[in-house]
Each structure stands twice: as structure tokens, then as C-alpha cells.
């Protein structure tokens, strides 16, 4: 059962080939047996999962289920789940039991999805390798010595290893697309504002966006339909109709204009990855697409811009973790300052502290104009690049990551090298555009992801373009040997 896609599982549940309870038990058993190798879950919630599965079965028995009722999933541990620890992979929130559900959690629950547990991630979503987690690194199912990418590394590894057929992720600078690429699964970061951020612990509020991670574009379409939409509790969510993303999956893509930004194929790209991407583009050519070379001239500014904007926002967002109302509090504080210093000093890991310090500096009096304000101006230039490009093309394609998964520990001592792992994904967040990663092949036995970037609110087209590719290829069906 675990090799079936969500669409197949939903059909099986509807046809009563198996019950949600059986399905849920099967996945819980796999997690128990296999996750020791991966560490993809922080918290497994068998009681909740079984209770929700039994509820789903009751609905299915009455033919009252929706298109996803009874399908088990996992949530990245950045989403607040009522009554369940929501740690954000930080010691700071190790004891934090959320008293409410995130909108995304609520919506998936309303769609009948069954929560298996909470997945591992980089601490507060800050990282590209899932090595900054307080609960230890996640391993890549394709190669236990490799990182799964980050920050949604737990979700990516769990889906790739068939421990869950789908999961939530969040993407601030590539945190859905890069781990999806490195683990050989499909993930979509929607347009900023498409999915509510309420209850999703903020890293960088103007960049954060939730999205689904699964094995196929069709599954992502199903999951996104149940996730997207306006939420009055999030002022930055956009009040715009949510289409049925599965309805347009089979639209023909003949004549589709694909832009290839020359900046995404230059220095820094592993030639072997480049070759895989070229083959994927060839496949699209065969499907009738027209390939156009384009330029995104400000691409080189994306990483420096991001590493001002994101730390600035995070330095403020993480101030609420002060040891006063919830989360880690140091032992026997001497006074208020000691309480703050030690609680935060002990509660946050190195990378989080690094970013808080960078952000605090960038916002300081006398530096604000040179850093934060300048970064906002560059952000506009980067968005303009895309706006111009989308006058010529329908979608933009390139690699999701310059390399395949690197080895655990390989970049942990070199933050800048780590930051460059997101070089192709970050600009999309700065512009607020939707982007996807789709399995496109391998270098050795490590997967390569093809990134597809769309115009604002063009998720339906992205999913359609990805689905057509998946009908013609089988990269997305391949499973890591140890987790078949």
C-alpha cells in the first residue's frame, strides 16, 4: 500500500479496498520500523492518527468522504497542532504544546486527512540540510550519508521513504523545493498569500509560504486544493478563488513557452546536474513546448538580498521566545536580563543565533538604510526581472539546486557555502512567485530536481506542466532501495 500515490490511496479507500485504519496502521508500522534510520519524525501521534482514521472510515462508510478522506499525512513541526508538541525543531520549543491548530492543519483535517505525526526540520526552518535540528539531522533515504536538504527535510525524507504519502512543508528560501529535489519527490511552493500562514511559526514573514510535498504533481494538486485559500486570520493571505488544481492537470502543453534563464546554468551549477536538467528540457521539447532563452539579470543579488531580509524579520519574529510565557526558561534566573540571556542562549542553536545577530545588525540605527532598505529595493529589481520574463514565457525552468544532496557535515562549518545551496530557489521567494521541484533523474544514485517557476497564482499551470512531464517519465515513481 505504501507505494501507492495519494490519488491511488484515495480511490482504494473509496472503493473500500482497504480502510483508513488499515492504511494508517501500515504507515505507523513503517515509521516505527524504518524511521530509526532517517530521523524524519520528531513526534509520531499514533493515538490521534487512529482516532482520525476511524472517523474517516465512518465517513467513507456513509459515502460522505471527500477526495482525500482517510489518507494519512504528516505535518512539518512548524505548524501548530492543538494539544501536540510543536517544537520547530528547537530546544526553545521542546516543551511547547500548541493550544490551537494552524489554518493549514485545520483545513487538511476538514478534508479528512489523517495526521501521522510531526516531521523533523531545520531549527525554526533555518537551514538547507536539516542539520540544525535540535532533534538531530535527518538522513536522505537515497543515501544515508547524505543530507535530505532543508528546511523541510523531515517531510521530504518521510515522503521519499514511503513513511507518509504526503506532507506539509514550508518554503522561505527554497525549503520545500530544495529538499524535494534532494529526496526525489515533488513539492510546490505556492504564490505568497495563497496559503494562510496562521499557526505556522514565522521565520521570515514576508517570504514564508506553506505548500504540499508528495511523490507526484497530481498528489500535490489534490493536497494544495485542500490547503489554499483566503484566511481572515492572516492579513497577507489573498482573497482569490481557489481552483480545483486537479481539473487542469491533463491540459495539453503543446506550444507552452518555457524560459531558461542563462543565469541558472552558469558557474556554480554541477555539470552533471545541468545535464539532467537539459534532458528534462528535451523531454518538454518532445511534448511540444517551445524553449526560449531568457535572462534574469539580478539573479546574483538574490542570496545577499535574502540574507538581509530573512534574518531581519527573523530577529524580530523570534523575540517572543523570551522564556517568559512559554518555551525554554533557564534554571534559576538571577534577574530579568539573566533570564533573557540564558533562556535564549540555551534555547536557540548556532544557526538561529547567527541569523538573529545578522538581522539585529541590519535593522540597527545607522545601518537600516544601507542594509534593510537597500535589500527591499533590490527585492523590487529581482521581482521586476520575473515580471519582464513572464511577458515572453509561460513558465521558467532550471535546476532546483546546484548540486545533488551533499554529505552530512560537508557544509556545516561553512554557512556561506550552505546558503549558496538555495541560489536558484531564493529569488522566487523574494518575488513571491510559485515554484515547484519535480524529480528529473539522478547523478549517481542521488536525485536531481527540475524547478518550474510560474507567474503569480499560476499554480494550476505549474501542476499541469509537472503532471504532463510525469506522464512521460518515471523518475517520480522510483523508490530508494532500502525503503521500497
Amino acid at each position, binding site marked *: 500500500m505504501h507505494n501507492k500515490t495519494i490519488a491511488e490511496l484515495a480511490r482504494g479507500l473509496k472503493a473500500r479496498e482497504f480502510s483508513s485504519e488499515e492504511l494508517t496502521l501500515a504507515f505507523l508500522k513503517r515509521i516505527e520500523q524504518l524511521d530509526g534510520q532517517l530521523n524524519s519524525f520528531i513526534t509520531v501521534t499514533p493515538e490521534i492518527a487512529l482516532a482520525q482514521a476511524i472517523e474517516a472510515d465512518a465517513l467513507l462508510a456513509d459515502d460522505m468522504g471527500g477526495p482525500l478522506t482517510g489518507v494519512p499525512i504528516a505535518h512539518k513541526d512548524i505548524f501548530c497542532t492543538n494539544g501536540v508538541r510543536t517544537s520547530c525543531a528547537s530546544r526553545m520549543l521542546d516543551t511547547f504544546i500548541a493550544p490551537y491548530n494552524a489554518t493549514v492543519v485545520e483545513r487538511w483535517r476538514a478534508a479528512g486527512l489523517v495526521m501521522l505525526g510531526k516531521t523533523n526540520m531545520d531549527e525554526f526552518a533555518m537551514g538547507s540540510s536539516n542539520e540544525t535540528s535540535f532533534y538531530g539531522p535527518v538522513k536522505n533515504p537515497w543515501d544515508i550519508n547524505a543530507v535530505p536538504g532543508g528546511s523541510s527535510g523531515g517531510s521530504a525524507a518521510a515522503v521519499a521513504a514511503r513513511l507518509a504519502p504526503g506532507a506539509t512543508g514550508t518554503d522561505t528560501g527554497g525549503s520545500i523545493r530544495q529538499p524535494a529535489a534532494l529526496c526525489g519527490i515533488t513539492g510546490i511552493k505556492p504564490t505568497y498569500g495563497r496559503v494562510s500562514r496562521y499557526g505556522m511559526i514565522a521565520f*521570515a514573514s514576508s517570504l514564508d509560504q506553506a505548500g504540499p510535498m508528495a511523490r507526484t504533481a497530481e498528489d500535490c494538486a489534490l493536497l494544495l486544493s485542500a490547503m489554499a485559500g483566503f484566511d481572515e486570520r492572516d492579513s497577507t493571505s489573498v482573497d482569490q478563488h481557489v481552483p480545483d488544481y486537479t481539473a487542469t492537470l491533463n491540459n495539453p502543453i503543446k506550444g507552452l513557452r518555457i524560459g531558461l534563464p542563462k543565469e541558472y546554468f552558469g558557474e556554480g551549477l554541477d555539470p552533471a546536474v545541468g545535464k539532467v536538467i537539459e534532458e528534462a528540457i528535451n523531454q518538454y521539447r518532445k511534448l511540444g513546448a517551445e524553449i526560449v532563452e531568457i535572462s534574469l539579470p539580478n539573479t546574483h543579488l538574490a542570496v545577499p538580498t535574502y540574507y538581509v531580509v530573512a534574518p*531581519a524579520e527573523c*530577529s524580530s519574529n523570534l523575540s517572543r521566545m523570551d522564556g517568559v510565557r512559554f518555551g525554554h526558561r533557564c534554571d534559576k534566573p538571577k534577574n*530579568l536580563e539573566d533570564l533573557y540571556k540564558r533562556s535564549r542562549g540555551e534555547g536557540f542553536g548556532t544557526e538561529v543565533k547567527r541569523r538573529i545577530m545578522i538581522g539585529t545588525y541590519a535593522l540597527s540605527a545607522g545601518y537600516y538604510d544601507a542594509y534593510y532598505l537597500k535589500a527591499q529595493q533590490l527585492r523590487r529589481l529581482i521581482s521586476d526581472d520575473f515580471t519582464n520574463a513572464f511577458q515572453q514565457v509561460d513558465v521558467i525552468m532550471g535546476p532546483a539546486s546546484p548540486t545533488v544532496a551533499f554529505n552530512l557535515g560537508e557544509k556545516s562549518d561553512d554557512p556561506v557555502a550552505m546558503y549558496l545551496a538555495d541560489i536558484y530557489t531564493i529569488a522566487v521567494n523574494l518575488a513571491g512567485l510559485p515554484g515547484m521541484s519535480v524529480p528529473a533523474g539522478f547523478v549517481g544514485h542521488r536525485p536531481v530536481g527540475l524547478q518550474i517557476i510560474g507567474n503569480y497564482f499560476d499554480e494550476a499551470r505549474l501542476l499541469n506542466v509537472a503532471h504532463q512531464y510525469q506522464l512521460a517519465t518515471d523518475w517520480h515513481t522510483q523508490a530508494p532501495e532500502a525503503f521500497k
Partner: protein
Amino acid sequence: MEWETVIGLEVHAQLSTKSKIFSGAATAYGAEPNTQACAVDLGLPGVLPVLNKEAVRMAAKFGLAVGATVSKRSVFARKNYFYPDLPKGYQISQFELPVVAGGHLDIELDDGSVKRVGITRAHLEEDAGKSLHEDFHGMTGIDLNRAGTPLLEIVSEPDLRSAKEAVAYLKKLHSLVVYLEICDGNMQEGSFRCDANVSVRPKGQAKFGTRAEIKNVNSFRFVEKAIEYEVERQIALIESGGTVVQETRLYDADKGETRSMRSKEEANDYRYFPDPDLLPLEIDDSFIEAARATLPELPDAKKQRFTEQYGLSAYDAGVLSATREMADFYESVVKQVGGDPKLCANWVMGDFSGFLNKDSKELHEAPVNAAMLAGMLKRILDNTISGKIAKDVFEAMWNGEGDADAVIAKKGLKQITDTGAIEKIIDEVLAANPDSVAAYKGGKDKLFGFFVGQVMKASQGKANPAQLNELLKKKLSQ
């Protein structure tokens, strides 16, 4: 040397919305600690602010009332600092682009002249919670009920030149926000709070002196005292060769002095930046016009109308229009009496206000309502009772003995207007005081008052005073 004082005020007016500025929790004062704080107010991980439209409407009303620009686009910013009663570690406020910019307020000075005080800006922000230092044995309790209560911070230009002017401005502003029904004005509960920026400079110098900011002075009296103290301190300091340092000072009401709280060097770097959780606030013309339509008649306009419509002096009109409640009460009395607005004004400002003060009651708590007062004034006007008797009737009404007619009937206070009856009493009084009559006739005119008093006393105060005067004059000239 002659010194000039320069004062600018920052007032925090708590807006009287039902719910908080960024959450749905209630704003009512006085609830058990932490019972009116939801997940958003607690700053739990993952929560997001959603702007309360009512708070924006109130800010717009204020802007229109002080002749300011209501900005079509304003931006919420985060003011970052750590404090235990500030749950998020930042306060959502407005920094570069406030919702209200550039207005003014006219205040009346002691010499009767009018001074225009500039209002630089007014911006929306959230209040913090409260730290409770008592009752926790060396620890601090945090009450977050107040966290997220909407505030309008109103910043004046440094146009004020004395403590008195500062108080006049504050009182006027206080009256205005209460008139507008955007703030309950309760200073004890902290609904209307003030910080004062005070500096001095040699008279004639254009450049401002270094200022000290005096924090949270929460009554008109304290504002005056704190500023006066601070001005004297600064002058004494400079004259003895010292220099004023830029700092925040706290007023100690018990000692009547200000003392240093933190210097500029110790001040926080607030690291303001636009709040990415809130889109820029965009206000369209129809919203502004809708707010304009809800503006009541403002104090200055009302005062002007009172002088014109009711023929009141500027002073009386000012007193009666000082609060909206008092003005409404007065106008209700006039309307029900159907005339003599001056008599109505005298009674509202006189006995009625006197009894309120004596019993420390708010107007809405008065045992005599507008209808009762009007009913009594009508009895004065139709000569049923004299103005003097009315004072007794009023007191009886205040003490809950019923309306004017009931009191008059019960106590037999109806005025004597029968000429014959009054003449009879006059005759008796004159007969009983032959010496005085002789003295009066001998030229001691002042004794007339004595006879009036005696007759009034003999009539138990019920003789109609005008008739009494007339008849007495006649009798004495016989």
C-alpha cells in the same frame, strides 16, 4: 537671564473599541488578570495580527476633528524591545507613515486670547500588558489583559510655553476625544496618559534647548507640577553652570519631583521596520467621508452656538460645553423648560453642579435628571415658587423626595401671590417694628432690606419677591 519654556506633549489615548486592535479579545477594564488575552495577545508562536477597522475609524475621526490629513496610506511598523509585559518582543506601532498627520488644536489662554497648538501626528499602536510588582514576593506578575488595547498616540508640536498652556492643551484634547466618543478619558484607569518633552532656552533664542522627557504623568495637576518642577530644575542646572542631558525622567507624585530613568545612551535601539504581517493600511475617500458623517458637533462649535443661540456669556458657554454630557444635559433642560436659557444655565452651573461636586458624583449618576430640573424651573417661571424656595425644592429632589411638584405640594412651598395676603403680612411686620419704620422714613434707606427679610421670614419664604418689593415700597412711602 529670562528663560523661555518649550513643551511638546505625547498623549496616549486608549480607543474605546470593544475588541483589541489586532485580535478579537475584549478590551473591558478591570477583569481578572490574563482572562482577556487570547493567543494573539499572548504572542504565541504562529499567531498573526488582524487590524481592527473600528480603531482606524476612530483615528480618522480624530484626524478630521483636528483639521489633519487622514493618510490614504499608512504603515504599521514593529518597535523592537524586550520587556516581560510586551509579549511579542515588539510593539506594533506606526513610525514613518502615521494614519493622521498635521493638525491643530486651539486653546484659550488666561488672558482670553486663543492660541493654536500644532499636532504633528497621531498614530495607531497596541498597548503593552502590565507588570505587577506587588503581591508576588520579589517576583513580578504579568497581566496581559491590556496587551493589544488600541492606542492613538497624539504628538503635539513643541508649541507650548508654560505648564499652564500644557494643561489647557491637555484638557482641550481630553474633552475632544471624549466628545468624539473614541476614548472614555478615564485617567485613573490609564485611558488617557501623557508624556511631556520639556526644555528651556534663553528668551529670544531660536534654537531649542536639550529636552527631557517626563513619562506617564497621569493627572492634569501632576502634569502641571511635573513640568513646573522640571523647568525650575533645568534653569537652576544651567544657571549653576551645568548642562541639561537628553534623558527620560519619571515624575514622583509623592515627592513632587522628577528623577532620571534612563539616559539617551541607555535608550533602546528600537529597530523599527515595517511589520511584514500587516499590509500597508489603505483608506479610501468613502471611508473618510463615512467617518466625517459620524463627527458630532465639536466643543468649539458648540460653545459658539451656545453664545449665539442662548445668549450665554463666553464663560458660561465654555463651562457648559466643556463636556458633551454636560452640554447635552443643559440643552435637554432648556428644551423642556421651553425658554429662559440663562436661568437654566445658572441652575445647571450653580446648584446642580454644586451638588454633583459635593457628592462626588458623575453627571449620569445625579439623582436629579434633566426633566426634574426643568420641571422645577418651570415652577419658578410661572411664579409657583421663588428662586429662593427653589433651592429647598432642589435639595429635596436631590434627596429623593420626588419631583418639584410633589415637593412643593408636600411641603406647602407654593408661593404667595395674593396681594391682600402679602399686604397683611407687611402690615404686621411694620406694626411690630415702629422704630425701624421711623428710622427708614428718617432716611435710613438701607433698612428696606431688613423689612424684606422680615416679611419673607414671616411668609416662611413663600411671598412672591417681586410683589413683596412693590407692596412694601408702597406701604413705606405712605
